[in-house]
């Protein structure tokens, strides 16, 4: 449906609605199916992405608790594990090696793609883009619906892979061949890998459908007066995210297609000179390059990191500004640094491959470009700090998570300077240092961005507030817990401790971290429990939360707060408001806030 068509439909509804003088029945023609299941309303699709993402986050988080149980308590037997999960996963009360690797792999895949890509940008791009640019819906609501249902299909296939006889894929989320190509090299690379590839292919389709829609909407459907430089930073960030996804996901898919050919049709794209001990045979494949897959994978894989991080950055910028009651510092520099990050994201992929035997000269180029990313990142951090400086800060739970995001982004970003420098990466590559680095900067930080977004826009989503006290408890446990879990892992990395080890007891060099691993596992369980508290809060508040009574509860400038408390499909009743200024006039000329819809006064100062 085009913007115009929705507009007309909406004005018809508006007329009808005026005639009845009632507020709640905008959608009397809608059925349960068209409203809640195959919905084409961007707000409903956003909620679908969010709730599916939350289900995945619980599954993925639970998996991490299970494999942390093995790492923390390798000698303890938990008979209930076998009762609960069966012999394949937990024999005699111990997680099996096969089960452990399946858990690690699925945890990674699910969290990176299903939670922090679909759950994060799927939710907030859908929810915020039309509301903040002033559009009635996405450019193509139908494609938008398909985007969710492809994601849903991908989810079903991924879940089903957990139940096949040989187990889900267990070769790490990066799925490097030959391990991922040869069923005889690992049981997880049999049916589980086929399902993994199908799920990921569906996921790529979902991501492209969504991404194209987001780009089209931001470019074409902004309301009158909403020039690109009047867009809130959330929209800029979501826009660059979509561009990154559209340009890089197809490359990943091409890599997967070659892998499917190698697995099933006897080609040798990635395979060469292989003798398998399990079957005692030499394979016929010659001339392929296992490294080719890594190039194709990381050509998405690295932009993917920013696909995860940019939406969080955008939302954090917005939330910090609103709750400091002060404009974001350096709006243009923020856009510029987002742009720089988006460009550089495509030029640094081989820094994941410094120890593959990469040409050293090529490696040096990637060192240079990788460390260059630290510059726009530094700009962003200092601009956030300056935004807080001399503000008037309200600690809403969203604001707390936004501040937490900045703290984590600093901590995790700085260790990127270690790993991006190839000479140091030789030593630290594939150790717990890397685990600590990317969990803090990409995993937890983006999770914090997501939490900030949920707490901030929940009133707009459901017309009710989340419980604030639970929000504070959730924040402090998660914040303290995240540092307690990941900070000590740097030390394990500096001891050379490799990642993806099921058991360290036979290693003289790495076995003296038993106590620390137990500590980390215990904290991980507590932090996981705190997330259950959040989920309880989320669902309880949908029906029972405190009701929102004012249109603009935060005194915010952006357009989503000019819609009714419970906006119907089409968002605005009557005409879409016109925009006259940028979104960050907080504290200007002594006024606490000035909405984007307020015309610029004759006596207003320039900035």
């Amino acid at each position, binding site marked *: 449906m085009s913007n115009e068509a929705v507009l007309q439909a909406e004005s018809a509804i508006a007329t009808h609605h005026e005639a009845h003088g009632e507020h709640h029945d905008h959608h009397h023609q809608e059925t349960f199916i068209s409203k809640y299941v195959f919905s084409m309303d961007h707000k409903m699709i956003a909620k679908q992405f969010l709730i599916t993402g939350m289900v995945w986050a619980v599954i993925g988080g639970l998996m991490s608790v299970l494999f942390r149980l093995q790492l923390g308590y390798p000698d303890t037997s938990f008979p209930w594990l076998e009762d609960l999960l069966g012999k394949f996963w937990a024999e005699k009360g111990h997680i099996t090696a096969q089960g452990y690797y399946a858990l690690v792999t699925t945890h990674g895949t699910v969290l990176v793609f299903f939670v922090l890509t679909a759950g994060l940008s799927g939710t907030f791009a859908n929810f915020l883009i039309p509301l903040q640019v002033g559009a009635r819906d996405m450019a193509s609501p139908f494609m938008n619906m398909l985007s969710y249902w492809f994601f849903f299909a991908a989810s079903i296939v991924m879940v089903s892979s957990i139940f096949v006889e040989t187990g889900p894929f267990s070769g790490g989320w990066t799925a490097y061949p030959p391990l991922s190509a040869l069923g005889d090299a690992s049981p997880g690379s049999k049916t589980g890998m086929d399902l993994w590839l199908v799920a990921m292919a569906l996921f790529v389709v979902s991501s492209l459908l969504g991404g194209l829609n987001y780009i089209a909407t931001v470019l074409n459907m902004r309301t009158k007066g909403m020039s690109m430089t009047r867009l809130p930073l959330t929209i800029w960030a979501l826009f660059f995210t979509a561009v990154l996804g559209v340009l890089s996901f197809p490359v990943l898919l091409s890599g997967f297609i070659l892998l499917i050919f190698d697995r099933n049709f006897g080609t040798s794209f990635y395979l060469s000179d292989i003798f398998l001990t399990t079957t005692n045979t030499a394979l016929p494949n010659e001339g392929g390059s296992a490294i080719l897959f890594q190039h194709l994978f990381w050509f998405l894989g690295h932009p993917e990191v920013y696909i995860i991080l940019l939406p969080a950055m955008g939302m954090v910028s917005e939330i910090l500004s609103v709750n400091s009651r002060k404009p974001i510092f350096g709006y243009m520099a923020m856009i510029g640094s987002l742009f720089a990050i988006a460009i550089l994201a495509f030029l640094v992929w081989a820094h994941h491959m410094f120890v593959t035997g990469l040409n050293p000269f090529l490696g040096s180029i990637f060192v240079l470009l990788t460390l260059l990313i630290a510059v726009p990142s530094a700009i962003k951090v200092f601009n956030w700090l300056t935004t807080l400086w001399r503000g008037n800060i309200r600690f809403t739970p969203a604001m707390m998570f936004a501040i937490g995001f900045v703290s984590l982004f600093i901590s995790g970003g700085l260790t990127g300077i270690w790993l991006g420098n190839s000479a140091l990466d030789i030593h630290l590559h594939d150790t717990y240092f890397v685990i600590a680095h990317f969990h803090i900067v990409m995993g937890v930080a983006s999770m914090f961005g997501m939490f900030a977004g949920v707490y901030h826009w929940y009133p707009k989503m459901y017309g009710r507030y989340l*419980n604030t006290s639970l929000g504070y408890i959730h924040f402090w446990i998660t914040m303290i817990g995240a540092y307690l879990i990941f900070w000590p892992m740097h*030390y394990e990395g500096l001891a050379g401790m490799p990642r993806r080890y099921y058991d360290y007891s036979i290693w003289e060099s790495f076995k003296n971290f038993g106590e620390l691993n137990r500590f980390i596992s215990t904290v991980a369980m507590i932090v996981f429990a705190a997330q259950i508290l959040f989920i309880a809060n989320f669902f309880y508040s949908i029906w029972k939360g405190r009701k929102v009574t004012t249109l603009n509860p935060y005194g915010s400038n952006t357009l989503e707060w000019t819609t009714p408390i419970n906006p119907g499909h089409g968002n605005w009743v009557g005409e879409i408001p016109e925009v006259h200024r940028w979104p960050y006039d907080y504290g200007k000329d002594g006024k606490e806030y000035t909405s984007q819809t307020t015309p610029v006064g004759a006596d207003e100062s320039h900035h």
Partner: protein
Amino acid sequence: MTTFLIIAVIVLFFVVVFQIAKVSDYVSVIKGEENARKQNNKINGFLMLAFMILGLIGVWYCNELLFKKTLLAYPAASNHGEKVDEMLWLTIWVTGSVFVATQILLFWFAFKYQESDKRKVFFFPHSNKLEALWTVVPAIVLAVLVIIGLKNWFSFTGEAPDNALQVEVVGKQFGWVFRYEGADKKFGKKYYKLINDVDNPLGLIWNDNAELNLKDDEKSHDDIVLTQTMYIVKDRPVKLIIGSRDVIHDVGLSHFRMKMDAVPGIPTTMWFTPKYTTTEMKKITNNPNFAYEISCDQMCGNGHYSMKGNIEVVTQAEFDKWMASKPAAYVSAHPEKNPKADSTKPASAVIATAVKSVVKN
């Protein structure tokens, strides 16, 4: 029963927290939302400051507890390793000071500028000077780190010195195979389709093979093939030629600060000069069980975590003696062709065990 009880307690705890939180939100409505918000704001502002102070103490305490367990607590065992450690220390100081400064600013600002009725917000949308400052300064600092890093990178990845001892290291699920050049100082040719785990784990070409179109390579007849432990020489550069028989593995040498993938079909190399013998390192680390371990650092299957090899760093004299006791793989596989058939009886016992362990793996 206890499991049940624990679950019950946890559930109860949850319900209690949830109820308290609910009540506190009701109370805030009664007190007036404005008042409640201000009170919450004060508490959280204070907690921000407390978190920063306790956090920094925690960082220090964590270092006290764990630093001695890292590799930085004693010297690196190779020439490259020393450079890596130097770079690590510089990077720690640079990023560490930025970390402390920015975290203090972040939480201090949060505390200092918490909402107050008296404060008037400072409308400060941008400042070109400040933005230029924090573009240029990080760029310069990073340039310095890049220059040092690349200098080291090129020296680590450059050609090994001519006097380097050459060892081939081949990964397989889940163990390591090593090959030395033997008397002729040259590696013979190999082909993966000749691999068999009974007597030729690397597939050395020992005979003409019309079917595979291969010619016997004499140079392979004196190559020595071993598993489990690799011997190298103190103060003599060693060049590893790394390969894999099946999936991607990685030769991880944390004490030497080196690492390189083992990729099937694409040989890679790595070189370094060990600085301490294993015996010396036992004293340095004060650990009688110390061993230079080769850890596989690339996910390679369900036995990944157990893919261990050992390195013994010895003096040249010890090395020569050890080397002399090792027969060529060709000789082990073809005892009838042994040129010194009578004098190697004890050695053939060694061969037998070596072959057995290969089979076992």
